[in-house]
């Protein structure tokens, strides 16, 4: 069977490569040092990944990335190829893999082409049915071998779980080291860190534009909290809102045409809508309390936000058009930082009670609350674009770290950056 190259995939990859190349002018920090995985999924799919043939150095990196991605998702159990290394379909003997207990098998080759690009060709095989599930080629510039690995892992993930993979997406977070703050963008596994902005004043609340081309964030560089928008392709930045007091908590609408922000220019912290060029400011909450951390529903019609109008911080919802605000979290403790799930059926948030922060999820329909983590200093959750993982800020060994938990709470991973405290993480969109 012929390989089916996907032009769509290539275009997407090219765009992200361009972004990465332009970003490369910013300093490249060291990679994440350690990743710890805690727990395991309920039903893990046994899959064998045979290191690709061809360029052995490229193949090794791709193998590390693919196996690392699949393992961290918690949905797969890696089956040891144990001496078998087919690279072509003709070399595959299905009984070998049935014997090893694999349900699926990935094989392929990788080569550095004369034009300097990496090309990986791979096949995903159903060992039980003895059929090919996918055959694809992935290509990228020669300095983007990890991106090739993430694409391969995404395709395997999608074919075997039915959900779109998120390994090729990026995350943003703030690294604090003493008084130095850096706004970082990295691959979903924490590698390939790029510094977007570094300064000696705080940076808070990064958020992605829906197309992944821009970050909006809060910076104190002029002595108070103001909101900036920055292109990840050109690094060009502009002030979005810089009124008296605090300008903060930016969130992009799903169609990219407006942002919700929090301003104190008229009194207490209230939510306003604003266009990406800073025009058309319109206030949409009118309380005397704190209204902050707005987040758009996937259909762009509603907002979740944090308010203390009832006496302590809780989550509320409202139509973007204004009016009919409704409290949606109750019970003991305070709740912060709501984020809709990508399917719009529920939301995650940070729950604070008895001196600890937890990552919690709530279903809109039945109101059921699920505490997803063991509790500690766990803040600022955000969904991966496929809704299967939640990224959040945590703390371990006295340092701020990045962590993820599967949406069923079963699998957690901790990502330790090389130094400093990682905080305010946010998962970016599919590119």
């Amino acid at each position, binding site marked *: 069977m012929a390989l089916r190259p996907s032009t769509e995939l290539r275009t997407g990859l090219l765009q992200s490569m361009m972004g990465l190349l332009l970003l490369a002018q910013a300093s490249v920090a060291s990679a994440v040092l350690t990743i710890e995985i805690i727990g395991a999924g309920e039903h893990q799919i046994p899959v064998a990944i045979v290191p690709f043939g061809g360029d052995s150095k490229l193949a090794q990196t791709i193998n590390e990335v693919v196996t690392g991605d699949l393992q961290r998702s918690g949905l797969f159990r890696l089956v040891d190829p144990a001496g078998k290394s087919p690279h072509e379909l003709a070399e595959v003997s299905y009984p070998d893999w049935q014997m090893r207990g694999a349900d699926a098998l990935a094989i392929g080759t990788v080569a550095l082409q004369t034009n300097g690009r990496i090309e990986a060709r791979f096949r995903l095989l159903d060992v039980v049915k003895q059929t090919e599930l996918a055959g694809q080629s992935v290509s990228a510039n020669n300095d983007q071998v990890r991106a090739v690995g993430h694409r391969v892992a995404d395709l395997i993930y999608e074919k075997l779980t039915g959900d779109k993979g998120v390994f090729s997406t990026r995350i943003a977070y703030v690294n604090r080291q003493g008084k130095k703050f850096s706004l970082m963008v990295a691959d979903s596994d924490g590698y390939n860190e790029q510094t977007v902005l570094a300064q000696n004043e705080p940076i*808070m609340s990064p958020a992605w534009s829906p197309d992944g081309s821009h970050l909006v964030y809060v910076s104190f560089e002029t002595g108070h909290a103001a909101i900036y928008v920055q292109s990840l392709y050109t690094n060009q930045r502009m002030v979005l809102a810089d009124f*008296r007091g*605090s300008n903060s908590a930016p969130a992009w609408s799903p169609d990219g045409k407006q942002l919700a922000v929090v301003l104190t220019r008229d009194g*207490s912290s209230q939510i306003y809508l604003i266009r990406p060029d800073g025009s058309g400011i319109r206030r949409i909450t009118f309380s005397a309390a704190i209204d902050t951390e707005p987040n758009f529903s996937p259909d762009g019609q509603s907002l979740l936000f944090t308010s203390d109008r009832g006496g302590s*911080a809780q989550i509320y919802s409202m139509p973007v058009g204004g009016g009919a605000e409704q409290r949606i979290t109750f019970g003991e403790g305070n709740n912060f930082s709501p984020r809709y799930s990508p399917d719009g059926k529920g939301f995650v948030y940070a729950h604070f009670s008895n001196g600890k922060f937890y990552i919690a999820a709530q279903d809109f329909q039945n109101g059921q609350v699920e505490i997803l983590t063991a509790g500690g200093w766990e*803040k600022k959750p955000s969904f991966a674009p496929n809704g299967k993982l939640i990224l959040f800020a945590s703390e371990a060994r006295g340092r701020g770290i990045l962590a993820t938990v599967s949406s069923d709470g079963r699998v957690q991973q901790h990502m330790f950056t090389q130094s400093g405290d990682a905080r305010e993480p946010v998962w970016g969109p599919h590119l």
Partner: protein
Amino acid sequence: MKKLVISIVLVNLLAACASEKPKAPEAAAPVPPPVVTAPEAAPAPAPVVEVDSLNDPASILAKRSVYYPFDVSAVQDADKPIVVAHAKYLSEHPDRNVRVEGNADERGSNEYNLALGQRRADGVKQMLVLGGAKASQIETVSYGEEKPKATGHDEASWSQNRRSDIKY
């Protein structure tokens, strides 16, 4: 108030003259005119600064911070005299401006704490204005939990970080 300052300057100048007098006899008797130039040479401005109660460590104005219980943004009774004293000072010194910086402990989201710090700072501003200061003399900002004075995860640190600072 300006009048008061001027009169104090005069008193100081007179004092300088007075202190200069004993020196004159020590100088050569045939040259008395230098007495006239002496007041010009006297370091007149320095004593004025000492008179500014803002710089008096014993004055209540030396206290520039107010503290809060958890998730509270109203100035506490114990700290009200501090804010009232600064209000009075600002009303008497319309040329002086302050920046009120609100802070919060880390028990909340960073954004909620930014809003809480802003409300704390704005609360101090409100009290300053009630006490006679002009709103235009006061700028308020919040650092939320971003610039902690103490970094521990305990009440000893948190209590220091729930704070508004009045900065001249």
